């Protein structure tokens, strides 16, 4: 097994040139299919939609959870340290 520490930048550059000149390697170009791109992009797009909807749900509905000091429940000693 070749140790990666044995490869220097010149060798990597040579390998890179080899790939560029021998492309495509087996006579046919295999590219990512439409299904492949769909798997990469659609869930990510849906995730962004979920983020936006949930992130602004209070603005959309005009309502938000009720919160008071009792719920916040800060540690008093820590509040004092910060004040100091």
């Amino acid at each position, binding site marked *: 097994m070749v140790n990666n520490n044995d490869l220097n930048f010149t060798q990597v550059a040579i390998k*890179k040139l080899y790939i560029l000149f021998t492309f495509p390697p087996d006579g046919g170009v295999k590219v990512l299919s439409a299904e492949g791109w769909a798997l990469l992009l659609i869930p990510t797009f849906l995730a962004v939609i979920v983020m936006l909807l949930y992130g602004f749900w209070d603005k959309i509905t005009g309502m938000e959870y009720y919160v008071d000091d009792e719920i*916040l429940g800060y540690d008093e000693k820590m509040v004092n340290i910060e004040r100091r």
Partner: protein
Amino acid sequence: MEGILVGIVVYLIILMAIGIWANRYTENEDQYFVGGRKVSIIAAALSDKASDFSGWLMLGYPGQAFKSGLGAFWAAVGCLFGTLADYVFVGPRLRIYSGRFRAITVPDYLEARLMDDTKLIRILGALIILIFMTVYVSAQYAAGGKALAQAFGIGVNTGVVITAVVVMIYVLMGGFFAVVWTDVVQAMFMVATLVLMPVLALGVLGGFDRATALMSSTHLDPFGGRTGFAALVFAIGYASWIVGYFGQPHIVTRYMSVEDPRKLRRPGIFISGIWTIIVLWGAFFSGFLGYAMFKAGIVHVSDPERIIPAMAMVLLPGWLAGFVIAGILAAIMSTADSQLLVASSAVARDVLHMVFGVELEENTMVNLGRVVVFTLTAIAIYLALSGSKIVYDIVATAWGGLAVGFGPIILLTLWWSRVTKEAGIAGMAYGLISEVILESKIYGWAFNAKAPGIFGVIGAKLAGVPVFFVNFFITLGVIVLVSLLTKPPEEVVKTHREIFKKVPVERAISQAEHVARFAEEIGLMRES
């Protein structure tokens, strides 16, 4: 070699400095375990994700992308939606309840929420945490061992011990604050590493199409070449991580610590969501393109899980490769430290303090937590040295135990007033016992046909699907069934209905209105 060492040493000095700074905020249990419930949302959200994504992200997952190709992206889908689901279904409600109950740990919250006077929920919770979290920590040490071995040519076991000692030192020093703020630094290292590696790989390969041209059709198929039911099982097998998110104490404790539950909505979900998208894409493409580099003969690895450190050493000068290795260690340490802290709280607070009623001075309790951290580190080192070193598998095993033990009961107690303590005890006991038996004696972490008898028949149909995915829903069913057969105290139902009341959002006051109010106050202007 020296360059790599410089990068790592600089990184470790930063961590130590944070540990020393955080020590001033570590006087009592509240501060040691949840940062006094006053952690800023940016720190909490980044720490949440840095704790979540461990050596699994930097080694285990790229290794899967290397081996399985595009199909492994389903795991990223599961993790991304798991992250979002945590913010939507768990974060704000758990913070509200834990603030009201002054809960420091997950068992604290469950005991208070279900009004359990038997202490069984606390004991079961502590057992689940101790067993599975120690396994989880051992996975991080194994990952650290691999990364250091790849970088320095030392033995994996030596790397395991070095990783364990460094993590232990800063957890002992600073507790939760040290963990959160080192997580923030580590989150930055992780994102930088995972953006850099695929970009450099694309450069050296000469573009994406040239990379895919080096791969087989199976490697480029979204379902690994499977069709029909087998394709569905394949996708679920990877995406199943999603259900585990509700039950990871080292993740949900971050929500309990945040300064204001409303900030988990905004900006919390945006910070976590965007960070998660970037690192998951980065980790996937590091492994995916790493495979193309391997096929092209640019990089050589004996273990696919070492692909990122191997790529860094080929593509970068020594000192920068050192920072990439530091990024990997960051992922490992940021998870291991949080898990050690949670496991320590399970023993020091949940068992000794709350179950056995050991009353000690606050400082002594913190020190007791430190002794537990030390002990757990020793056990996790032993597990990492003696057990399997396949990070993906060890993490899946531990993730599954926590997912089934805590996930269903946390989710139901936050959204259903009708859950009873009997149901909680039954569900957690079933989750703990079934996961231990199924994972250690029957299947391992995923279903397979090799299991004995009827289990083998089921295993053949669901081959590759993690055991925890199915067991999560069975546990959910157990809790619902027992809840329907028993009755919760009226006080519990009343509190649940009142605590999540919503109020109209206060309209922000504009600058002009502030000026007008001030003018009224000092008599420059009269109210019309």
